[in-house]
């Protein structure tokens, strides 16, 4: 069988650094959409706790345990990252989304100011602290944005990777030009 070369959605485009901001690829090894079946929400939380030390996150929240993370991504939906979804079989609709998303990580002291130019939500630490994850728009793109230690993870549809990088680089350059 042919040996295929796996390329991430951001291959050849990242990393980028302008001023104090850095944009890099941060693709998780595995992304699974978890949508609990009606009445199974408690069972899903229990199974996630037992298998990965996680739970089903409240709206706007994310949970992490080691490499495994789970981000709230919409009404009745969360993304399980870097973890095996098998323990949830029969409790939730599970969809492999690993190759459907491009994940970018924006880091630097003014990362929230950069995103303020593209995202109509307050992402400053006081309003969007550790353990926050939301679904919103990155300019005209649907995006999932999560707080990480030193910045933000930004997930956009894979086909939007180059557009998202272009938008973010424009902002990074203009902030860097201000000095």
């Amino acid at each position: 069988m042919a040996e295929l070369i796996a390329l991430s959605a951001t291959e050849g485009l990242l990393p980028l650094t302008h001023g104090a901001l850095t944009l890099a690829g941060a693709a998780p090894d595995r992304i699974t959409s978890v949508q609990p079946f009606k009445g199974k929400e408690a069972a899903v939380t229990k199974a996630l706790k037992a298998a990965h030390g996680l739970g089903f996150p409240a709206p706007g929240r994310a949970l992490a345990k080691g490499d495994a993370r789970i981000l709230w991504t919409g009404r009745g939906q969360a993304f399980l990252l870097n973890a095996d979804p098998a323990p949830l079989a029969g409790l939730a609709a599970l969809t492999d989304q690993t190759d459907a998303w491009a994940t970018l990580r924006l880091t630097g002291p003014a990362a929230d100011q950069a995103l303020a130019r593209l995202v109509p939500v307050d992402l400053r630490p006081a309003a969007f602290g550790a353990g926050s994850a939301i679904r919103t728009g990155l300019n005209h793109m649907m995006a999932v944005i999560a707080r990480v230690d030193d910045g933000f993870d930004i997930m956009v549809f894979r086909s939007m990777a180059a557009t998202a990088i272009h938008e973010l680089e424009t902002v990074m350059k203009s902030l860097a030009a201000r000095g």
Partner: protein
Amino acid sequence: MRIPCPLCGPRDRREFYYYGADDYLRRPEEGAPPEAWDAYLHLRDNPAGVTRDLWHHEMGCSAWLVVTRNTVTHEVISVRLASEKEAAK
């Protein structure tokens, strides 16, 4: 204009898609008279004041919302998930 989504909190209007009056939540029963279908499909109030309509949080949590708002003052009075049973009342 900002709409306080019950799941996401207050969000900018650009994240939402406007669908129309909340009449769409009250579909006539099977066998209803033609007048009921006519009203359901075509007859809409155009109030200067309090109105209720459906919005989709398409750039956010993807929930359908029933928004009660005032067309004169632009005040948003209440927002509920359309999936709640009482929302159709």
